[in-house]
């Protein structure tokens, strides 16, 4: 089962490598990962998506919690939450395709953020599935480069992850 695990950790050298190392050394999988400092510069927020059965997820969350650098952790998928991912996608846009790509971008509420005579760079945000769907809609033939941020997420309502 796919899970979104989000955690606060010390913004210190080596902290990220410990988190990532935990996954590789115990044979767990990281599908997406993003990390950046929070409003408190001593803390970083890290969000990752992983998959596994209940026992694996339980071990992952316990092992992460045990790390000295990890201050707080939550499994966003346990409750209602919002998840978003940002994608920058560079596509070949010539002739009739130019108009078609513009329309697709509009339908997906994307923005064209860079234009040349033969290219568009489109920025899109949404769930993983929405970004996947856009890639499918425009088709491999026109895609030159895809950059995705990995999933970010936050709980709905009153739930707050704070140190």
């Amino acid at each position: 089962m796919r899970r979104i695990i989000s955690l606060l950790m010390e913004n210190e050298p080596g902290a990220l490598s410990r988190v990532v190392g935990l996954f590789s050394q115990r044979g767990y999988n990281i599908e997406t990962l993003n990390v950046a400092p929070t409003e408190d510069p001593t803390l970083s927020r890290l969000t990752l998506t992983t998959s596994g059965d209940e026992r694996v997820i339980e071990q992952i969350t316990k092992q992460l919690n045990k790390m000295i650098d990890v201050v707080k952790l939550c499994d966003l998928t346990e409750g209602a939450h919002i998840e978003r991912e940002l994608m920058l996608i560079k596509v070949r846009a010539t002739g009739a395709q130019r108009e078609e790509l513009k329309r697709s971008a509009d339908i997906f509420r994307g923005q064209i953020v860079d234009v040349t005579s033969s290219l568009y760079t489109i920025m899109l945000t949404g769930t993983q599935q929405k970004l996947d769907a856009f890639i499918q809609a425009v088709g491999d033939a026109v895609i030159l480069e895809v950059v995705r941020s990995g999933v970010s997420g936050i709980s709905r309502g009153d739930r707050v992850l704070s140190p």
Partner: protein
Amino acid sequence: MVKLSGGEMVVQALKDEGVEYVFGYPGGAVLHIYDALFKHAGDMTHILVRHEQGATHAADGYARATGKPGVVLVTSGPGATNAVTGIATAYMDSIPMVVISGQVPRDRIGEDAFQETDMVGISRPIVKHSFMVQRAEQIPSIIRKAFHIATTGRPGPVVVDIPKDVTNPVDKFDYVYPEKVRLRSYNPVTRGHSGQIRKAVQLLLAAKRPVIYSGGGVILGNASTQLRRFARMLDYPVTNTLMGLGAFPGTDRQFVGMLGMHGTYEANMAMHNADVIIAIGARFDDRVTNTPSKFCPEAKIIHIDVDPTSISKTVRADIPITGPVDTVLNDMIGQIEEMRRAGAGEPDRAAIADWWLRINAWREAHGIYTAPRYDTNGPYIMPEDVIRQLWEVTRGDAYVTSDVGQHQMFAAQYYLFDEPRRWINSGGLGTMGFGLPAALGVKLAFPDADVACVTGEGSIQMCIQELSTCKHYGLPVKIINLNNGYLGMVKQWQDMQYSGRYSHSAYADSLPDFVKLAEAYGHVGMRIERKEDLRPALEKAFAMKDRLVFLDIVVDPHEHVYPMHIAPNGAMCDMWLSKTEKT
């Protein structure tokens, strides 16, 4: 306020931490620290080992025997990488240790400088935590944190990597050793959950076929006294893991022996047939459980551990209790006593009596303590008999370190430890070469005690250079070398699973003359080949209080360790009992 250089701060911080012994080896990146040690060591003693692996194992042995953290000081590059096996050994067995490694100067890091290695990176998967010192001012607080992390919660090794220029003797800084440690993300639990404890007590008291399965956590958590009280008030059978031997007395009627791959028949049968198992500071290791899906099919499991990641990792716990084993056991004892004052809190005595009848029948049938299960009439000295006699000669009161292999299992089976912290072995990592340096660490801590290193001719050669350290510091340990001319456990597996094809496990023709070798290092060597010479040799060796004696004992080359779990796909109850019999 005192002004100290970085190097002096390292030494002062160790003194402020109450460190007695530092096990180390100097080199370029730590020379400033060594100079500070030369001038300011005070009561703290540095032990110069002969290889950095020896430093970590010696510190580890010291830590296991005393409960205090072991301290290691090594240089950068090869000094640090040589220490890695010892750090991993300590990590797997949760031993408190602080390892200070030198590093190249800050402005050289990343340039592939001489003796540079990324120690924080290399050691990352085998430490509880690590620090890279960035500025000299951080040294006191980092060392304070390192000791705090190493010794609290589930203990473990902590690496502190210090670039050489940070320890520069010219630059002086204000030194204050912090009294308190503040780590917002690290707060080990101090008590178990009372609701869970209540449920556990109810389940335990209702048990008809209970087993107390206690592990190394009981020793690390200094809960041996609580375990004994708890077990005696219930009269339930107790089994110890390899790491837990001595937590419950080996000679006690309630003790059914070690469990697991080479556990006793009665311990493994009791586990397999149990209806309630209470695991205390044990981690359901693969050398205990055999095939996890077949593990103890009828048992409800209560699992107490200070580390929540140990709970339900391999075998799911029905009642998990996260907490230090001593306080949790105290709480359980308190609850049972309270119930007893109200006229309840008694186990099902009739069911327990029946359970003991079954266990005693297992003991009678195949127990290694009811009758010798090895050949007593053959021409050879039997390794089991060496351990039994060692136990007798030392009145069961020695500190016994071991290496890894058949001799380790024989020692675990036949030396009955009545006290915790007497059995010092590398259980998790299984590190050959551990025994001798560990023994010297133990002997430093307990100079008046008998310290025996039970080893084999394979393992002893992996850290034999520490004979020189023993000479240097006058550490008269006794080395019991069970010499069968083979890598015994490898050979046993090759006998059992590879039709006796001894692929690279035989080397009898190229073994050194251990007597001469011991003598070359300035010690006493004895070779024992005949049965009748064994006892007098042991007695003579232990009577030589101030000499290291190396007893090279020629034992049956073809003996196997039994019982042995049938694997893969076996359950706890599936065992080989001898070369021809199985359950």
